[in-house]
């Protein structure tokens, strides 16, 4: 019977606790506003706010003092918009994400987002949203996200999201949903570290054809070609001694008289561990790789492994003049959750 099936399907549908809590918070907020309205008359509030505005004008102050924002909001939404017109937040997994303020001008919307750990120390000064944030809005956009601040006391990292409408049209009306499903933190940087090995021992390596998922470098077009989908990579070996935790050094050798240096990262989509190599000659001159490329393989137990291979235009005859160096970034903490805020952009 349709009715029975329809009934049982609907029994599985119900609102999440988060959304119900949001409504309850909104109700409490409305109650507070009503009380404030009763205590202060409009002229008094205007006078107080003008005094405060003459001393403080930054949205950050408004953010740190919610009562201040609430006071402004009593008078005029326009004034409130100037400071921080959004004040929408959500919480999941002990992490609170708040849209602090927006600034819409021409075809660009700039949005300040704060991420705060309410329970532990998972948000730190290295917190990175990498590719895990999504902007759902009714127009085609390009977006960038950069961290603009971190407050140690409140464990809050602030990000600036810049969204530009692709057609360069003025952004009007509508709303934007900003969501994040994970972020990484606890980053460690290894800057210009030497990779200790005698390069004169490096031999010709066996190679195999791999399917490329990306690549770049000054001579990528010359050696690989922009439309090529495969390239020769050295055959991976067991992980060698390497000072970077989270990145495996899986091979070094010559292929067609060019030096290949290969690393791999397990579960790269969830840690964003990455880096690059370069050579230094006897006079400390830096020789960048001619190109690099990426490919993926799966381990026997199905884990995805991302390989990165740097290729240097250096022949075996002159390799003993060089030393190998690298710069790498790894992270040791992945925090997952479902943070989603919808807010108007006008």
């Amino acid at each position, binding site marked *: *019977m*349709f009715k029975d099936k329809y009934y049982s399907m*609907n029994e599985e549908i119900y*609102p999440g606790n988060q959304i119900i809590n949001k409504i309850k918070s909104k109700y409490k907020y409305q109650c507070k506003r009503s009380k404030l309205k009763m205590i202060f008359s409009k002229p008094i509030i205007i006078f107080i706010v003008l005094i405060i505005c003459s001393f403080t004008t930054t949205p950050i102050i408004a953010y740190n003092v919610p009562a201040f924002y609430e006071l402004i909001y009593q008078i005029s939404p326009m004034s409130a918009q100037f400071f921080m017109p959004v004040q929408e937040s959500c919480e999941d997994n002990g992490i609170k994400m708040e849209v602090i303020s927006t600034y819409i001008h021409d075809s660009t919307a700039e949005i300040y987002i704060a991420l705060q750990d309410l329970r532990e120390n998972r948000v730190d000064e290295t917190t990175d949203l990498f590719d895990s944030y999504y902007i759902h809005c009714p127009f085609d956009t390009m977006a960038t996200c950069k961290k603009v601040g971190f407050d140690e006391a409140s464990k809050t990292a602030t990000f600036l999201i810049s969204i530009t409408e692709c057609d360069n049209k003025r952004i009007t009306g*509508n709303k934007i949903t900003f969501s994040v499903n994970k972020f990484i933190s606890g980053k460690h940087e290894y800057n210009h570290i030497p990779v200790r090995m005698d390069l004169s021992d490096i031999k010709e390596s066996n190679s195999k054809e791999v399917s490329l998922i990306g690549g770049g470098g000054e001579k990528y077009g010359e050696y690989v070609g922009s439309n090529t989908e495969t390239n020769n990579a050295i055959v991976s070996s067991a992980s060698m001694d390497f000072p970077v935790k989270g990145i495996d050094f899986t091979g070094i050798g010559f292929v067609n008289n060019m030096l290949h240096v290969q690393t791999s990262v397990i579960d790269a989509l969830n840690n964003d561990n990455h880096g690059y190599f370069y050579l230094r000659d006897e006079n400390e001159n830096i020789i960048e790789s001619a190109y690099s490329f990426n490919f993926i393989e799966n381990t026997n137990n199905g884990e995805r492994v991302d390989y990165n291979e740097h290729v240097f235009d250096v022949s075996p005859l002159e390799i003993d003049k060089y030393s190998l160096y690298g710069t790498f970034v790894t992270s040791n903490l992945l925090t997952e959750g479902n943070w989603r805020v919808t807010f108007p952009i006008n």
Partner: protein
Amino acid sequence: MDKQSFTFNDCLEDVINVYANMVYRIAFSYTRDKSNADDIFQEVFFRYIRKKPIFETEEHRKAWFIRVTANCCKKMWSSAWMKKMVPLEDNIKFEMAETNNLHYELKKLPIKYRTVIHLFYYEDLSIEEISKTLKKKPSTIRTQLTRARYKLKEILKEDYDV
């Protein structure tokens, strides 16, 4: 349905407890999408908080919630925002494959019939009750229900007895 009467100020939580699922399910039946149902659900309760409506009986309160939810659904669907929007991937998964299939098939049902079908089959409202709640003529509801059933038979074929 709990027939006790609530006053607004001290029982918002009770109101949410009693009507949250109903509002959410109507919104979902219309949009068949969790994100949009979330938006409508919030809008309905925010209206309730803003307007602070007073009702003589719980039946009136229930009717208010159904009507406002249906209106919010229609308003959202006809907005310029919705017309430009690209739907996200399905964000709900049911326990049984058969239920998932039913969900996908119901997406094919024209929007205008979805609320009537939900109120009739899930909320167990009669045509007269639906007509009063949605403030439409009984004949309109009857016609919509007949057409909706016909469409459902076409969509679901012989899998379900509509």
